[in-house]
């Protein structure tokens, strides 16, 4: 009976990503339930091995590092072949990945190579008897499905941020391995990774999101949203689809049914009426603040705290008050 669990630790450039530790934490919980070990695969450019030992702190028993120059950017076919090869040869009970942008490409490939379904974008996962069971938001988060996998191995991808990386130190054995096939021969090639503003927090990582809608009236008024985000200090800026469609903000900032789905600790909706498609992207936020001129706006139905009025007056006042509260 296979009791070990394989995790894939995602990297970008020569660094492991935060979600790598989340994948290992999820794997550790499954392996503890099964009474097995956690084996981790890391693929990256030469130098990534130095980062690999850190995975032991999160419960990895064995870390297999595959260094190759062709892994400097994400290498879809090379990495999928590698993880699937490990998955097949190790006789694992489960394979743990993360439903990040890269993981959404990688996880289905790995599952298909192994010949099993993928329980995708799970918010919880556990081993229950002979099944791996997880919860997965469906219908834009309005319904929560509990999904059971009877396939062996059970391949799962966890929603980024759904698992809190938890330290569970092991003396991880780090070993080097060769790629499967020639990674440079991958048919799909990343020709360029365009770094965003590295000072900018990603919407998925930010504990606070300040988001703007049409109620801001003009693109240049987004400065008020940015200023409020800057006052919080640990905030990212989001936008509604109306705003990204109008080109006030890039499409990558869009929160909603067809954009990003986020659940920060605090979501501040500025001049957002709260169309159902927008709510689909942020309704699971812990605390929601809405500032809107229309007291009947649907956003106030989901907002914990609302202020009715002109965003162009209220937001600068809030920015000043937040600065004062934070002592700067």
């Amino acid at each position, binding site marked *: 009976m296979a009791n070990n669990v394989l995790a894939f630790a995602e990297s*970008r450039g020569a660094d492991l990503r935060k979600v790598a530790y989340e994948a290992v934490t999820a794997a550790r919980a499954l392996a503890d339930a099964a009474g097995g070990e956690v084996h981790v695969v890391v693929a990256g450019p030469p130098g990534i091995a130095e980062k690999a030992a850190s995975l032991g702190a999160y419960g990895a028993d064995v870390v297999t590092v595959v260094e190759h120059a062709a892994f400097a*950017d994400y290498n879809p076919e090379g990495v999928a072949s590698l993880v699937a090869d490990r998955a097949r040869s190790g006789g694992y009970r489960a394979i743990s990945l993360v439903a990040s*942008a890269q993981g959404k*490409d990688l*996880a*289905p*490939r790995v*599952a*298909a*190579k192994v010949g*099993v379904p*993928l*329980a*995708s*974008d799970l918010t919880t996962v556990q081993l229950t008897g002979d099944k791996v*069971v997880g919860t*997965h938001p*469906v219908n*834009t*988060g*309005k*319904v*929560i*499905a*509990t*999904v059971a996998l*009877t*396939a062996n191995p059970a391949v799962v991808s966890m929603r*980024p941020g759904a698992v809190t990386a938890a330290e569970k130190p092991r003396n991880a054995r780090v070993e080097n391995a060769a790629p499967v096939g020639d990674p440079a021969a991958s048919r*799909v*090639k*990343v*020709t360029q*990774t365009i*770094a*965003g*503003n590295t000072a900018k927090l*990603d919407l998925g990582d930010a504990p606070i999101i300040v988001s703007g809608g049409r109620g801001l009236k003009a693109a240049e008024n987004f400065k008020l949203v940015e200023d409020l985000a800057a006052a919080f200090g640990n905030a990212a800026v989001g936008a509604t689809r109306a705003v990204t469609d109008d080109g006030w903000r890039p*499409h*990558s900032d869009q929160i909603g049914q*067809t*954009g990003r789905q986020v659940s920060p600790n*605090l979501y501040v909706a500025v001049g957002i009426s709260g169309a*159902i498609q927008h709510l*689909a992207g942020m*309704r699971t936020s812990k605390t*929601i*603040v809405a500032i809107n001129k229309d007291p009947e706006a649907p956003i*106030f139905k*989901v907002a914990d*705290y609302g*202020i*009715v*009025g002109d965003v162009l*007056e*209220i937001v600068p006042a*809030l920015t000043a*008050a*937040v600065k004062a*509260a934070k002592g700067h």
Partner: protein
Amino acid sequence: MKIAVCIKRVPEMDVRFKIAPSGTNVDETGLKWDMSDFDGYAVEAALQITEKLGSGEVVVVSLGPDAAQETLRKALSMGATRAIHLKADPIPFDNFAIAKALAAELQGGGHDLILFGKLSIDSSNGAVGPMTAELLNLPCVAAASKLEVANGKGTARRELEGAAELLEFPLPAVVTIDEGVARPRYPSLKGIMAAKKKPLEVKPAQLGDVRMTVTTMALPPERPPGRILGEGVAAVPELVRLLQTEAKVL
């Protein structure tokens, strides 16, 4: 250029869902249905590619119950050439079983490009496209926000967390489409009339074993009703106080 687009009929999302008595599905009473959002972008992207080239065929494929034919007709009315309905009722939750059925249909079809939406807005797995690519042993880009094809080659862009990547791949290939590639057109009256006469082939879906199921569906906990603290700038101090003392986020 021969393009296949795999599409799914899904409920419209602007409703309050109820759970069916079975406890494993939503109550479908009164739901309105349409093509999944991202599948609409994929159909539009395929049409724009063939229109730009001035020739080609767009085949739309949908796996599902008989009503999936309404969704296929919509794609035909947008301008797709012909349709294939793979009958499966209900649609299993097992994405690998679905990918196998689609791959069995698409295998040997001579498609230069096979497009999917990046995910179905209902089941939200985003797995069937890349899985089908693996089964067909084709190169694949998942969640492309830009796509261009020319001279047997494709280029795409994919949005990452705080970054983006540009990709290059040979055709034939599978690409799943994110928002940003193309905004779907509305079917014209002429298109709707023409769609009625376009070929729609019906076949059973070759699903095989189902090894992933939904055991329960439930509604997420309701948010407590919100409060409006007040009007205008005067309400700001109270908001800041609550963010500090009650929400503890400041």
